[in-house]
């Protein structure tokens, strides 16, 4: 199966390992992965700040970049959600609405793709430890992906999953919210870090780099002994 990777800008620049883990994982599952090099960003930072016209420029670019892909897979629930939103954003645009819809229809978040398209629930991963999973808001509420990551994680050998108390709470990232409304964001991320501690887990797993940078950044600042991992890296672990 041919899969185009949409790696997202955060992973491209800051979390390169997650990108590599995603490629390896998909290859292990028998996919032929390509990386359209002209890809940039889904446009979410501008879109969510109200700069819709400016965001549309990057959106159009992304539509073109992935126009010939069969499947677009991304290790980010939030960026995947953004692609799925494109038809809504270009509604009524004679040139772009249809093209946006085509992209949206073939876009999948990584775990959603593995479970729903590949039909795989055990990827053969091994990782020793006690972990909890952060259900990111866009992935859960807007993309509607709730079960796939849990199914996959429950089959990781050696990994004990603990429930995250108040898992429905937002971590306080919210893109530019994290820097515009720092004081509120701080309260939210503190609450999340507390929940992670309360879970008793030593590893925090998530499927969105934005949330993980936020929670992880706070964990580091507070010097908590909790390791933060992207789900792609967990599923690609073999030890």
């Amino acid at each position, binding site marked *: 199966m041919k899969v185009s990777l949409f790696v997202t800008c955060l992973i491209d620049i*800051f979390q390169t390992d997650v990108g590599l883990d995603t490629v390896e994982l998909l290859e292990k599952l028998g996919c032929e992965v390509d990386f359209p090099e002209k890809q940039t960003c889904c446009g979410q930072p501008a879109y969510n700040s109200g700069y819709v*016209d400016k965001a549309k420029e*990057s959106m159009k670019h992304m539509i073109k970049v992935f126009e010939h892909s069969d499947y677009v897979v991304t290790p980010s629930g939030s960026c995947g959600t953004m692609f799925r939103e494109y038809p809504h954003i270009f509604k009524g645009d004679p040139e772009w609405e249809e093209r946006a819809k085509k992209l949206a229809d073939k876009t999948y978040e990584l775990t959603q793709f593995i479970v729903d398209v590949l039909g795989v629930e055990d990827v053969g991963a091994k990782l020793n430890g006690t972990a909890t999973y952060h259900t990111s808001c866009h992935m859960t509420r807007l993309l509607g992906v709730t079960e796939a990551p849990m199914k996959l994680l429950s089959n990781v050998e050696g990994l004990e999953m603990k429930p995250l108390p108040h898992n429905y709470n937002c971590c306080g990232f919210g893109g530019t919210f994290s820097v515009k*409304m*720092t004081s509120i964001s701080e309260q939210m991320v503190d609450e999340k870090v507390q929940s992670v501690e309360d879970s008793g887990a030593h590893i925090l797993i998530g499927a969105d780099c934005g949330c993980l940078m936020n929670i992880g*950044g706070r964990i580091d600042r507070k010097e908590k002994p909790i390791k933060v991992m992207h789900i792609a890296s967990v599923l690609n672990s073999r030890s």
Partner: protein
Amino acid sequence: MAMKIGDKPFKERVSDGIDDKFMRGAVSSAQGRFRSGRLNAAEELGNWEDWRKLGEEIRSHTIENLDYYLELLSENVTKRGGHVFFAETAEEANDYITNVVKQKNGKKVVKSKSMVTEEINMNEALEKAGCEVIESDLGEWILQVDDHDPPSHIVTPALHKNKEQIRDVFRDKLGYDKTEKPEELALFAREKLREEFLQADIGITGCNFAIAESGTISLVTNEGNARMVTTIPKTQITVMGMERIVPTWEEMEVLVSLLTRAAVGQKLTSYITALTGPKQEGEVDGPEEFHLVVVDNGRSKILGTAFQSILHCIRCAACINVCPVYRHVGGHSYGSIYPGPVGAVLSPLLGGYEEYKELPYASTLCAACTEACPVKIPLHEHLLRHRQEIVEKEGKAPVFENLSMKAFSMGTASPAMYNIGSKLAPTALGAFAKDDKISDGPGPLKNWTEIRDFPAPKKDRFRDLYKKRKKERGE
């Protein structure tokens, strides 16, 4: 009290809220109870999504045909001997209400809970005209006794106060000498207010749903105060926001079912009271005269715009009860009697961006509000829409942000520019990094690193590594 509460700027209000540890504890535990109540009630029905879709369909149809249903309503109210006044502004509404009260020579007005009367500042108008106005909802009454402390929640207005604070207010203002036990506090209020009810000459209520087909107004309460207000005084005045209407009893029933479940997880509240006109000939209790005041006060400007669905709101506060931002900053931070997500959408529409332009940004767009709304209002999308209006139509965005968004657009719409920008990242930020982390970042990163570390950009981007890997594998 008008819609606006307090004079402090947004940032100060937020910081006051964050510092108010009691309020935050109270709000957090209340949210927990509201949340489980709502979820249990929804689960019990089994097909909550169908209910929400029905609610959305009803609200959407009604607002789309609002002129028709309001005409029908007023026809039916007048047929039953009631009077209807259509008020475009708060002043018109207050003038009419004050005149009715004066004509009746009213001295004592008892009120049941009504957000719209807060919005139009009706109490003050009546007080200026020499009337005593008494709030009878327990929460509202507590706030009134406490020198008009503003409400912080649209269903439980005194949510920000604890029982010790309430005991002290009662003690200082009314000579209360018992404990802070909620039962004792409530009993005290019952006795005090019972006297007021029996003496009042005018009763003023809000309206949860007016029923167009029969000219009926319905009131949803637990305490029974709305029943008091509409049973004892000789004159009843009901004030409704113009969108608070349904076509028939059948839709009233559905929306009440959604409201009570979404608000507090109750199948029905203790009292749903449906009143049609004044009392009938031969009936002994109930008002002799009935006036319905239909208020626009800026709502009609929302019709026909992308924000129209905010008029579908049935004021259940489910969005407020799930909002993490509300939990941490409390209701007063919103600077409006309408707090939380619904307030962040509605307040700028009714009160203008000048006053409320920060509210749409006080959200992570986590969409918990949208998910909780029983009539499926896309609240987080409305917040986004506000941001768009502020930036693109009003041109009110900060210059720096505007520039960086321009740069963003250039950098992401063109792969060449993205390439240069992303390649420069490690160099630009390298000086600030230590052990792969940035703890004191420059520019916009400063706010980030105030509270958390930021990862240093990797020397090689993923795309560079990917290329390398491909080469190594001889692809």
